[in-house]
């Protein structure tokens, strides 16, 4: 792989240096490489019981009866709970993240295959599963709504008859932008291109499935929940509200998490079942779903059917974009997004281009499929938005017979236009797009690739080059605009420097592999001069950390990272007061240089942060008005989102005989502002690129007409292995965020967002000789083969 940021100085177009020890190795790795990570399923408590969930075999049915007698008689079974029992406890339904309700256990009907119907608590995992087989449920099967395009047809079965007065499957209509202004631009444009573009239903499928261990102490009424949660604080508050447990008696611990990718943001019925199981039995109860349960019942992502339209002048000036979206939300509206954004941040579908007008209309509907709409490695629907714009821009390039790179560069928002207000109201904080694009072209050797392509085409070979350029909106978000169920999206951070100068920083966010224990130590180290090795990062435990909304939507660095930098500065400010007393000079005469205060003009007179820490805790006087100790706490409310961008180039070869797509090369140049640990950033980018290959070429949660999930195991839901992905080529530019204290933007999801259009654009480019302008993901051999059929063979 080419790692451009290791090239000699002078190559880069900036003078950036990474923050706080840069490419240091990860502090969390020593336990993982010894098999000593502690994941939820590793938690073993004395007397612990196991919960297993009975799920619906059908997509839509009325429950006629449930007989649990035989299951209850199983010698190892301690409890069997149905929806009826939960109704008595007032727990049969729970709120979703978007203000709908979802059944914890079905009471009236089942509404998707895999829905939770009853649960068993037994002495071991196997016995719990055995007992599920003994529960007898009689279903009255109903017609399901599977094809989202037919969900609103008159006479379609009404899925949510639990909702008062509900007579159809409509959830919401949403729009953004200016319809009339957009129509006016379209009406007079030289060129209008439209395309139907589907972003299929996919699943985050982290390698660790979801699960929890619930331990309810009947004596003091305290609930401890080890859970695969990306948002332990938000979950605790929701449990308090839903279950009526006092919040101070709930402790949510997210231990090591085996990947989340947005799939571990919602509260799933299984967590509630385990909690109820523990309350009912008085014993700790573990629930760990298996892979099929994970794929069929926990949060899916995407599932947008989009019509994209683009208006331009004949010479390639893009004027306006509009889109109409039909969103399949499944049986319960469980979209994970800030409350005021039912379509998440889809509004950034205007992309990286300076437009005259834009408009989007969206309708969301219920179907008999699993609920979700989670932000799978993306900041709330940005993946769909970026795919739409980057695909439709390529369609325009096709029609104009223009090079897709040239078309993009011609329409970029210019550096002097930032902060840039888009036609849908988003305020892009900073960006300098063309250098990023040019760097990608340089790494890829774009012109040479195009020459090679021409030669190969002449021999009948199918080589494609795909480009995408994205702008993301990450780091939700300003509390005046953004909340989840009333909880503002700000994050707390607490820093305590011990007497000997070691420190502990407590975060409200939670790593699922992103390396927070390292990155946050580096941020604090940079600000306060204590080496990262001496800074302990505590996270993922509501008893030990300040409140905050958790890790998803690439918000850790933009929000919590800012909090960490600012709390460290607060500690440094106090240290300065103490230093002035120690050195007997005024505060104004002190200079900070990583780790120590010096007297201006007399660098030999200095005190280190460690000496100050001892003084802060020690005997002797402190300056007037300064309390002992060296610690601070803040809650950071971001002023705006951060807007990272990037340029991606993908090269594919398609076997004309089998229609198999091979990703030969992939170049990713990311601009996430100030870079903290380049090694970790590259890792995040690699991860997302692999997601992109999966979504573009392999992954889809499909259903048959009866609503049977066809992607319910890893045999059917294909995730890239080492054989499907190339060695990644990465590079970077740096355009700091003007409002983030260290200029950083989020990067954890950029590549998941940016790579699918590059790959699809490459495949479509390879298929150009067939006269193909668009093909839908996943571009499996059969889909590519279908696309190739019926049109002229490539020139031989």
């Amino acid at each position, binding site marked *: 792989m080419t790692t451009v940021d290791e090239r000699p100085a002078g190559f880069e177009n900036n003078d950036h240096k990474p923050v706080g020890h840069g490419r240091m*190795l990860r502090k969390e790795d020593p336990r993982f490489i010894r*098999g000593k990570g502690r994941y939820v*399923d590793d938690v073993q408590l004395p007397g612990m019981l196991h919960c297993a969930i009975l799920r619906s075999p059908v997509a839509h049915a009325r429950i006629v009866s449930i007989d649990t007698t035989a299951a209850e008689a199983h010698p190892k079974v301690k409890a069997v709970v149905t929806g009826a029992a939960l109704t008595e406890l007032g727990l049969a339904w729970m709120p979703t993240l978007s203000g709908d309700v979802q059944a914890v256990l079905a009471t009236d009907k089942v509404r998707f295959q895999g829905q939770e119907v009853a649960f068993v608590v037994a002495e071991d995992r196997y016995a719990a599963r055995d007992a599920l087989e003994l529960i007898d449920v009689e279903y009255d099967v109903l017609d399901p709504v599977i094809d989202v395009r037919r969900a609103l047809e008159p006479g379609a079965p009404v899925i949510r008859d639990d909702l008062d007065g509900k007579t159809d499957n409509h959830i919401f209509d949403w729009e953004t932008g200016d319809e009339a202004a957009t129509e006016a631009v379209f009406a007079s444009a030289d060129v209008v291109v439209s395309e139907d573009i589907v972003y299929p239903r996919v699943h985050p499928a982290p*390698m660790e499935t979801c699960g929890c261990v619930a331990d309810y102490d009947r004596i003091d009424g305290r609930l401890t929940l080890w859970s695969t949660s990306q948002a332990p604080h938000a979950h605790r508050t929701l449990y308090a509200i839903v279950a009526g447990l006092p919040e101070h008696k709930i402790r949510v611990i997210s231990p090591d998490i085996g990947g989340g990718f947005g799939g571990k943001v919602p509260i799933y019925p299984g967590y509630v079942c385990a909690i109820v199981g523990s309350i009912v039995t008085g014993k700790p109860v573990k629930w760990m779903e298996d892979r099929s349960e994970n794929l069929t019942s926990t949060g899916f992502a995407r599932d947008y059917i989009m019509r994209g339209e683009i208006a331009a002048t004949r010479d390639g000036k893009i004027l306006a974009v509009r889109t109409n979206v039909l969103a399949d939300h499944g049986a319960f509206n469980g979209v994970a997004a800030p409350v005021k954004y039912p379509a998440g941040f889809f509004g950034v579908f205007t992309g990286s281009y300076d437009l005259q007008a834009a408009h989007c209309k969206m309708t969301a509907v219920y179907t008999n499929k699993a609920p979700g709409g989670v932000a799978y490695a993306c900041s709330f629907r940005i993946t769909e938005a970026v795919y739409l714009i980057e695909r439709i821009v390529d369609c325009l390039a096709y029609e104009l017979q223009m090079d897709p790179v040239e078309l993009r560069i011609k329409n970029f928002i210019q550096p002097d236009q930032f902060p840039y207000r888009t036609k849908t109201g988003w305020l892009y904080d900073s960006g300098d797009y063309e250098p990023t694009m040019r760097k990608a072209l340089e790494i890829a050797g774009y012109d040479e690739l195009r020459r090679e392509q021409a030669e190969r085409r002449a021999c009948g070979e199918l080589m494609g080059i795909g480009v995408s350029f994205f702008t993301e909106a990450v780091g939700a978000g300003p509390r005046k605009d953004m909340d989840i169920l009333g909880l503002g999206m700000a994050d707390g951070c607490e820093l305590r420097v011990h007497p000997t100068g070691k420190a502990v920083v407590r975060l409200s966010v939670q790593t699922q592999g992103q390396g927070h224990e390292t990155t946050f130590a580096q941020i604090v180290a940079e600000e306060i001069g204590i080496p990262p090795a001496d800074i302990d990062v505590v996270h993922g435990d509501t008893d030990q950390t300040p409140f905050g909304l958790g890790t998803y939507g690439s918000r850790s660095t933009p929000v919590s990272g800012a909090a960490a930098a600012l709390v460290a500065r607060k500690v440094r400010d106090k240290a300065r007061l103490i230093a002035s007393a120690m050195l007997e000079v005024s505060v104004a005469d002190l200079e900070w240089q990583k780790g120590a205060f010096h007297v201006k003009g007399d660098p030999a007179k200095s005190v280190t942060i460690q000496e100050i820490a001892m003084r802060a805790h020690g005997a002797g006087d402190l300056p007037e008005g300064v309390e002992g100790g060296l610690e601070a706490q803040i809650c950071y409310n971001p002023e705006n989102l951060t807007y990272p961008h990037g340029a991606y180039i993908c090269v594919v070869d398609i076997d004309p005989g089998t229609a198999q797509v091979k990703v030969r090369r992939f170049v990713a140049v990311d601009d996430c502002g100030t870079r903290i640990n380049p090694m970790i950033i590259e890792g995040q980018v690699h*991860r997302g*690129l*692999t997601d992109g290959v999966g979504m573009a070429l392999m992954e889809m949660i499909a259903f048959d007409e009866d609503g049977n999930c066809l992607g319910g195991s890893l*045999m059917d839901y294909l*995730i890239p292995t080492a054989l499907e992905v190339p*060695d990644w080529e990465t590079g970077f530019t740096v355009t700091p965020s003007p409002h983030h204290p260290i200029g950083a933007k989020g990067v954890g999801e950029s590549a998941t967002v940016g790579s699918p259009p590059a790959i699809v654009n490459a495949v479509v480019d390879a298929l150009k000789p067939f006269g193909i302008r668009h093909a839908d993901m996943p571009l499996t051999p059969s889909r590519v083969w279908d696309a190739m059929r019926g049109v002229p063979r490539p020139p031989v």
Partner: protein
Amino acid sequence: MQVTMTVNGEEVTREVEGRLLLVHFLRDHLGLTGTHWGCDTSNCGTCVVWLDGEPVKSCTVLAAMAGGHEVRTVEDLERDGELDPVQRGFMECHGLQCGFCTPGMMMTARALLDRNPDPSEEEIREAISGQICRCTGYATIVRSVRWAAAHEANAGGAA
């Protein structure tokens, strides 16, 4: 039924059900939680351990079948306080993020290096192709294994 096997060099005997999977035996009965359970179709490879020196998916082996055999898990990679070069390679080259696939990947990598001390990128990719990592994108895993190959204690690449 009673089963006796050698796990990481120590003989263990336990009373188990005949249907108990080796992965659950190691995790739930022996507390060796470094070996993970990630799927129910033998696709993910988070459960890879060695059975008589060969990497196997322990979700696809019954504990009873391992009776009389030798099992080696990730907990045995570090010996006498010395990390295996594979472990060091994964740390040095950022071959892990969430760490969930990592034990299985390392066990496969160790076995590969034992039979092929200088594997090419293609050979490494082939060796781990029955395992899924959702975090790293594999390039850093490949580099980790190459790093280990270059830092083996003796040139022959023995464990």
